[in-house]
């Protein structure tokens, strides 16, 4: 799954090579200019050979044109390659995150993951394109300038060489210091993201409690922390960067001083000194750039580290090595002595055993927190049971192909989640290619949703907001029921999914469910009416099965089920 940054770069070696070739040509051309200047001074002006001038000027012109072309190909290729790699990394990271198990998402904030996928990848992108390009350019440029200087007059070239070494040392020191700070900044960035994300996603709660001021204060504290970290970063730069700047200025002066002495002593010509001075001017920008580059480089590397941390998390629930693929899923479910506890060892389910024949209906009832939802989460392998086995059609689900298992089960979840997309696309989710318009309509009708959908101006093409904003709770629930029905899977799970529906609508949905004879139905509910006709009703209490049987049997028993009945409908 995970590819190292270097692997990516290797994959694009030809593009990089081309980009670097353009860079080399354009820098080399740039180097030619001082040569031409030297000839103009020494041969044309001092030597009086004006006939050479047109050729030299044509040379300068060609350099300009050449640089114009290669500068462009260089920049464009770096941008193209960098963005290709970044897009690729972003895609891979997304796939990786999406493949992680529910347990990971219980512990990790959306805001943080968003920061990784967006901001951190952006920073790496910057590093492998713009910053990378400049680094190579600076390095190459400096080497060439030094080479030219040594060729011109080696003893004088010692001055800029020494300055280069000095600058590089300063830049490396700075990079080291900044790396650690950038990691902190990246962390704080994701925290800031999280605070803002919760505030916006929970805006209804914030407003209901008129807690705007409190939220503003909360944000302010993180905002200030962010400020402090950024100032910390600035202070490092302030500490080192001015040295880089001053070194470049001093090169010029020392070259002038020593070079002047050499000219006076007759060791070099005035033209050579002029060229030397121009070369020295030429390394001003790469050296000043160093500070800036090491800054951006550390930011990119820190982000890359953060991204790698996410890659270190492996999905707990994976496709088995040699998965069993059933020809046809009939939908027979069996729980054998299933137990489940979370990481903190808090036991959620204890020794659960029950069997649901293909096409039958099982009702699950129980108090809040009794473990009802966990039962269906285990069946879908969102979590793995910590004890016992769960079988589908007689095969242990941990041996089954994960995608077959999940695509055989449709769930209507308790907290409805809809995407900001059309109703049509929402209903099709999971099988977009297989579900036709007609099925969408049929499923919506069965879920009692067609009447309100068809009253909307765009009907099934209506775009609903994030989490179904703009729809009432009952409407959202009905769309999510339609979404499950449209898949027509062997197993249907309704997790307390009619709680926001009025009784008549619920009754209609009950009737429709009873007609699905080839679907195994697990129905979690609080209302007796929802489970009344189930082939078996399981009553959970504190993670264990307290009683089970048909409605009639349980009424006879006069236990928990009976008590629930009485509180809902009065004495029989």
């Amino acid at each position, binding site marked *: 799954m995970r590819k190292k940054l270097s692997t990516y770069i290797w994959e694009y070696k030809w593009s990089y090579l081309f980009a670097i070739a353009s860079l080399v040509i354009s820098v080399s051309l740039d180097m030619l200019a001082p040569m031409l200047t030297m000839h103009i001074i020494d041969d044309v002006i001092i030597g009086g050979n004006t006939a050479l001038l047109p050729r030299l000027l044509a040379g300068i012109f060609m350099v300009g044109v050449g*640089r114009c072309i290669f500068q462009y190909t260089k920049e464009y290729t770096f941008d193209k390659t960098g963005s290709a790699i970044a897009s690729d990394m972003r895609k891979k990271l997304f796939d990786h995150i999406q493949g992680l198990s529910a347990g990971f998402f219980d512990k990790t904030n959306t805001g943080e993951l968003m920061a990784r996928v967006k901001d951190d990848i952006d920073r790496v992108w910057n590093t492998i394109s713009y910053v990378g390009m400049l680094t190579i350019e600076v390095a190459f440029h400096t080497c060439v300038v030094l080479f030219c200087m040594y060729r011109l007059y080696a003893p004088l070239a010692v001055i800029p060489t020494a300055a280069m070494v000095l600058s590089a040392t300063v830049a490396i020191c700075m990079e080291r210091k900044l790396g650690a700070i950038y990691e902190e900044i990246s962390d704080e960035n994701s925290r800031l993201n999280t605070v803002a994300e919760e505030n916006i996603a929970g805006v209804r709660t914030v407003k209901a409690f008129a807690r705007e001021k409190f939220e503003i204060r909360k944000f*302010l504290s993180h905002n200030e922390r962010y400020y402090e970290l950024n100032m910390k970063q600035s202070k490092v730069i302030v500490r080192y960067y001015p040295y880089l700047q001053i070194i470049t200025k001093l090169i010029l002066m020392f070259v002038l*001083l020593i070079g002047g002495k050499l000219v006076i002593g007759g060791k070099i010509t005035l033209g050579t000194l002029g060229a030397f001075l121009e070369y020295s001017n030429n390394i001003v920008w790469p050296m000043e750039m160093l500070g800036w580059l090491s800054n951006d480089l550390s930011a990119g590397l820190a982000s890359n580290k953060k991204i790698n941390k996410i890659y270190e998390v492996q999905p707990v629930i994976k496709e088995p090595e040699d998965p069993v693929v059933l020809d046809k899923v009939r939908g027979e479910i069996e729980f054998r002595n299933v137990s489940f506890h979370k990481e903190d060892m808090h036991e959620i389910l204890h020794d659960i055993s029950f069997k649901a024949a293909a096409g039958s209906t099982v009702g699950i009832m129980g108090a809040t927190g009794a473990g009802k939802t966990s039962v269906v989460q285990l069946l879908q392998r969102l979590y793995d049971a910590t004890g016992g086995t769960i079988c589908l059609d007689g095969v242990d689900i941990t041996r089954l192909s994960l995608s077959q298992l999940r695509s055989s089960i449709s769930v209507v979840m308790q907290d409805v989640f809809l995407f900001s997309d059309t109703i049509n696309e929402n209903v099709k*989710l999971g099988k977009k290619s297989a579900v036709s318009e007609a099925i969408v309509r049929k499923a919506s009708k069965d879920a009692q949703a067609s009447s309100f959908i068809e009253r909307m101006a765009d009907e099934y093409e209506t775009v609903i907001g994030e989490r179904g*904003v703009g729809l009432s709770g009952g409407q959202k629930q009905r769309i999510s029921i339609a979404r499950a029905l449209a898949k027509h899977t062997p197993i249907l799970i309704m997790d307390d999914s009619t709680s926001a529906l009025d009784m008549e609508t619920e009754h209609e949905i009950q009737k429709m469910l009873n007609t699905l004879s080839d679907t195994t139905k697990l129905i979690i509910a609080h209302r007796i009416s929802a489970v009344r006709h189930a082939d078996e009703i399981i009553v959970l209490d504190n993670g264990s099965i307290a009683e089970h049987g048909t409605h009639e049997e349980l009424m006879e028993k006069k236990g928990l089920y009976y008590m629930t009945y009485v509180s*809902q409908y009065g004495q029989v």
Partner: protein
Amino acid sequence: MSVNSYKQDETLNEKSKLQTLGRLFAYMLKHKSALIAVLFIMAYCVAVNLINPLIIEAAIDRHISIGDLGGLYRLVGIAICLNAVMIVLVKLRMYIMSKVCNKVLVEIRQQLYTHIQTLDFKFFDSRPTGKILARIIGDINSLKDVLSNSVTTLIPDFITVCSVVAIMFVKNARLAAAALISIPLMTVGVWFIQLRSHKRWQIYRKKGSNLNAFVHEDLSGIRIIQSFNAESETHDTFYKLVDEHRGAFMEAVKYADAFGSIVDFCWGLGNISLWYAGIIIMGVDKVSIGTLVAFGSYISMFWQPIMNLSNFYNQLITNISGAERIFEILDTKPEITDDEGVAEMPEISGTIDFENVSFYYEEGVKVLENVSFHINQGETIALVGPTGAGKTTIVNLLSRFYDVQGGTIKIDGHDIKSVSIESLRRQMGIMTQDNFLFTGTIKENIAYGKLDATDEEIIAAAKAVHAHEFISQLPDGYDTRLEERGGGLSVGQKQLLAFARTMVSMPKILILDEATSSIDTKTELLVQDGIEALLKGRTSFVIAHRLSTIQKADRIFVIDNGGIVEEGNAAELMAKKGAYYKLYTAQLKDVV
């Protein structure tokens, strides 16, 4: 429901770039003294930079060419001193600038966030969370470089360019004109590129925002995606969005990357015409070698900042789209807001009047029409009716989440529009259908209802709603840390916590919008008993479908077709054999 989803690009109101920039720099201007100090330092640095070539010229012409070693030493000595002073000043300048910039960023971010808090639901309903987030974090961060570079690069570069031009003209006007002959060409080139690339950078930002919105949604709905085995579909969508994002980038750089090329080309032209003019037109003997070399330096000094400026300009037009997006939000006026000089709502006793209230979310689709009712202090009112009939709307209007389009709503005789929203909502306990929990401990979450609640109050509220039992069973009890959205708790438990949060504020008016829908009947009855004592004398609204929840209400309103079709207590409505009776029997139909 015109909703901006991740599939749609946002629309931006076109504002001129100068206006946006001006606004941005208004923030900087608040730090005047710091900026003035920076300007002085920069003036010194620019001066030294400009003097450097003059020193070189003097050194060559006056000392080196005549073999005056002593003069050379003196001159270079002075130059080194001048440059050494610079280092201290540069340090100071960088420190001041980064402080100012970071402060400005913090201020803008805080202002944006504060402003977003005042916006109403319409704003939030119309755009995905991810897009708002992109503006608070990403767009603001992108301003950082604009702010600091603009002052530390733009201004000195600008001064340098102007001074270089001035010096060149003073020294030799004809040579100067020759050297700068390519400026018009460059201007045209730059103008052309900016014309092309600005729009494309805007598109690039919008695509980034779409990407953000999608990632946010995908991660929020990850359980649905995994359980529907829809990974391959979201994978496709994400890939498409990433490719669009990159495509937009490539479109923009296609033009933007030509900046350096144009500057380079013009630089070359300037060099050619300088030498040509110097040697052929004016004649070598008229111009000293030193002057020509110095001019060569000046040309570099002229074009290097232009190169910087063009780089910066590129960045500026990229990031100015970020600023535009920030200011657009700051310019969004909330529709529901306190009128000027509104009074505080006095302590609520709890009489409520709806007088001919009409409301619609979308023009032409009436949700409520001419609804009137009176509620006495301390009454418990149940709202029942088919889904989508407008039950939630009634309580949303009472809490002023939306404003009525017709009629008035009064609490204790005060029109709710005449009092401040905060004083109104603070006294109401509103439990919405989505009970959002924050990352933090259980205690902190309950205390959200009353920030200064004592531990006793928190526990009392939890006990009243029967959440105390399960909280005590958790390893860390009330200090258990909840992950995002209360992950790890069942929906029913989350509902109980949200309920406790509402109860701890001891609201004068309590609104329970399907507050117990995910709670089992037994617990629900216990909760009802538990809160009864707390609610004595307080007005409350209960929206529910389960009959056991509403039977105890003083009055039941049956809502349908935009109004109240029936009202009365349970017994009266049963006797009537009308709409309520029908709903009631529907629930019993299968059971008995």
